[in-house]
């Protein structure tokens, strides 16, 4: 065996070992990512189920329709056409490009390169080219979104409740998407350059639309450098994707998934309808008609909501689904006129408190009283009292969140548990009770207008 032949066998062996090492490393990363993501998903599910039971199993047909129209079709987004279009591009692009992730995952596991290329023939280059076009659109969309947030400072995206983490979260998502898309395209440019040089292992494909026109930027580079660039981009891209998957549950970006169940479970009754409190309806009935009271009727223990566990699971799903876009707050007449109430903050507070309770459970095995609650600890009386129950927030939400339902339940707790009401409301209650009208008029004069 000549020295050259020995060397090439050694190189081949080395390359083979490198390949196997990469496969193992990849599988460790993928398994870890899926493990941690699953763990967090289970935790979120447990947190949502901390809420009270609420039966939402009716009218399945309408619910599926809502999911397709509101979540997939983003119907409500189109009330604001420009952000809607940008959002659609970023969303569709982001989802469709994930088909490419399937190949990347399989390549990572099997050690193949562009596994689908030989199977799909010329369709392959078309598909990757299409993904590249989407990637560029996503990239442009994210840049425009970044500008709207940080330079144009669109009002609803620049409010005090977003200070700190929420603002960083939003920007981090946009930057991550820009980086991921860039890596995807640079990877393809390096790949095409390697194909042109006839590098081993780099399956020949037709040129891709975007990266094909960019190969000039790597001209004159050696195979070694190009392989390093291609591998670096490939690794950063897939690790970025796996990290982003695990970032989702801590981020407002979670709406990309939860918009679907949330639209499915959206309120179907007219928005004006307040939820009935059956336990109080019964209390009143038993008081007025004692013979109807069952012998062992247990009096209700608490009214309205003070903390997470008093809200329904749908309220908590709402909180996880919120992407803090602020369309609710933008439409809120109280917020618009400088009151403290912001429906978005109600949702963010609910999520923060739910996460806090969740951490408490993780730490102690079960919830240990921390002396805090959603009401007062996060949401103040002043915010709740500013609500006109106009439902503008409910109407505005693209992912069918109902902040008013939470506000109403907290208000019920304030009145019925704490007897906390402004003096004028107490007078109004007294008048209704005694005069059958919210004002202090004699019930005998109710039809006096007839003679007026």
């Amino acid at each position, binding site marked *: 065996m000549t020295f050259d032949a020995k060397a090439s066998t050694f190189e081949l062996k080395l390359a083979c070992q490198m390949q196997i090492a990469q496969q193992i490393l990849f599988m460790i990363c993928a398994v870890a990512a899926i493990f941690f993501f699953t763990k967090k998903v289970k935790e979120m599910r447990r947190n949502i189920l901390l809420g009270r039971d609420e039966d939402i199993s009716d009218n399945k047909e309408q619910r599926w329709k809502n999911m397709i129209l509101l979540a997939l079709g983003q119907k409500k987004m189109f*009330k604001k056409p420009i952000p809607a279009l940008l959002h659609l591009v970023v969303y569709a692009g982001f989802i469709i490009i994930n088909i490419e992730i399937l190949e990347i995952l399989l390549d990572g596991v099997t050690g193949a390169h562009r596994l689908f290329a030989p199977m799909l023939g010329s369709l392959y280059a078309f598909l990757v080219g299409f993904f590249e076009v989407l990637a560029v659109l996503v990239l442009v969309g994210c840049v425009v979104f970044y500008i709207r947030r940080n330079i144009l400072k669109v009002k609803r995206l620049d409010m005090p409740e977003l200070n700190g983490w929420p603002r960083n979260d939003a920007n981090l998502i946009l930057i991550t998407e820009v980086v991921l898309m860039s890596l995807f395209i640079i990877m393809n440019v390096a790949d095409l350059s390697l194909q042109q040089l006839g590098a081993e292992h780099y399956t020949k494909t037709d040129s891709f639309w975007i990266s094909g026109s960019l190969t000039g930027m790597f001209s004159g580079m050696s195979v070694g450098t190009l392989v390093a660039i291609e591998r670096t981009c490939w690794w950063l891209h897939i690790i970025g994707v796996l990290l982003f998957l695990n970032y989702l549950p801590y981020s407002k970006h979670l709406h990309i998934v939860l918009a679907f169940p949330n639209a499915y479970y959206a309120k179907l009754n*007219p*928005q*004006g*309808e*307040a939820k*009935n*409190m059956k336990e*109080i*309806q019964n*209390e*009143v009935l038993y008081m*007025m008609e004692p013979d109807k009271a069952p012998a062992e009727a247990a009096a209700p223990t608490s*009214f*309205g909501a003070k903390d997470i566990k008093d809200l329904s699971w749908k309220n908590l799903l709402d909180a996880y689904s919120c992407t803090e876009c602020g369309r609710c707050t933008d439409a809120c*007449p*109280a917020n*618009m*006129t*400088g*009151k*403290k109430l912001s429906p978005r903050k109600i949702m963010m507070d609910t999520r923060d408190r739910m996460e806090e309770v969740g951490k408490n459970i993780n730490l102690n095995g079960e919830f240990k009283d921390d002396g805090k609650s959603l009401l007062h600890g996060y949401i103040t009386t*002043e915010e709740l*009292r500013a609500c*006109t*129950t*106009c*439902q*503008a927030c*409910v*109407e*505005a939400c693209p992912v069918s969140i109902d902040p008013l339902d939470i506000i*109403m339940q907290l*208000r*019920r707790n*304030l*009145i*019925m548990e704490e007897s906390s*009401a*402004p003096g*004028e*409301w107490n*007078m*109004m*209650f007294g008048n*209704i*009770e005694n005069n*059958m*009208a*919210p*004002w202090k*008029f004699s*019930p*005998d004069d*109710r*039809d*006096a*207008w*007839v003679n*007026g």
Partner: protein
Amino acid sequence: MSIKNMAEYAANGEVPEVLFWVGCAGSFDQRAQRITRAFTQILDKVGVKFAILGKEEMCTGDPARRAGNEFLFQMMAYNNINTINAYGVKKVVTICPHCFNVFKNEYPKLGGDYEVIHHTTFLQQLINEGKIVLKDGGAFKGKKITYHDSCYLGRGNGIYEAPREVLQAFDTELVEMKRCRSNGMCCGAGGAQMFKEEETGTNRVNFERAEQALETGATIIAANCPFCTTMLTDGVKNKEKEDSVKVLDIAEMVAMSI
């Protein structure tokens, strides 16, 4: 015009076509009483056989429920439903979208199931049936009108077109505010805000909404709710436009034109 109540009908062994639920504002508030009278004039003129509950009517409990006092709401609901059911009422018309919402969406779960209709829809039907004919295009001929969607008729129950159709029957120009229909802005009275001072802010909700209405250049602001009417009137006064701009309920506008 004599207005009979349910008890009088019952005493004669008769059942009226429809119960006119006046509501607390329509019964006691002097401004809203004008809406009540206007609506009864129309009913009388058209020949609708209607009755009121009179002294037997009570607050629906809406402001109590919205404030969070479910006990009081349930008490009022219990009493009202018992009274109305005892008279065998089938159809209820009301001039208040808050009462309308409670009757249409909340009383059925408590045993009070009626055909419920808001007066603007009722008027639209009478116009469509040719029972109301506006004289010479109405009293507002050539005037510019803007329409304020109340939350509980609009967003709350999805009724946006019926009131507009009534206004289109007038020979006028209907101009929309920037925020209208499902995006309409509250007058500030809902959620029991009518009965308390507003929380601290930079402006009052009704001032803001009235400014939006005034921006259209309309000389008539048409409303469908006694609370909106009061709130917007105050808002117009705040801008010292009360001499040139009037806030009117759609029933008043129709009554002036027949």
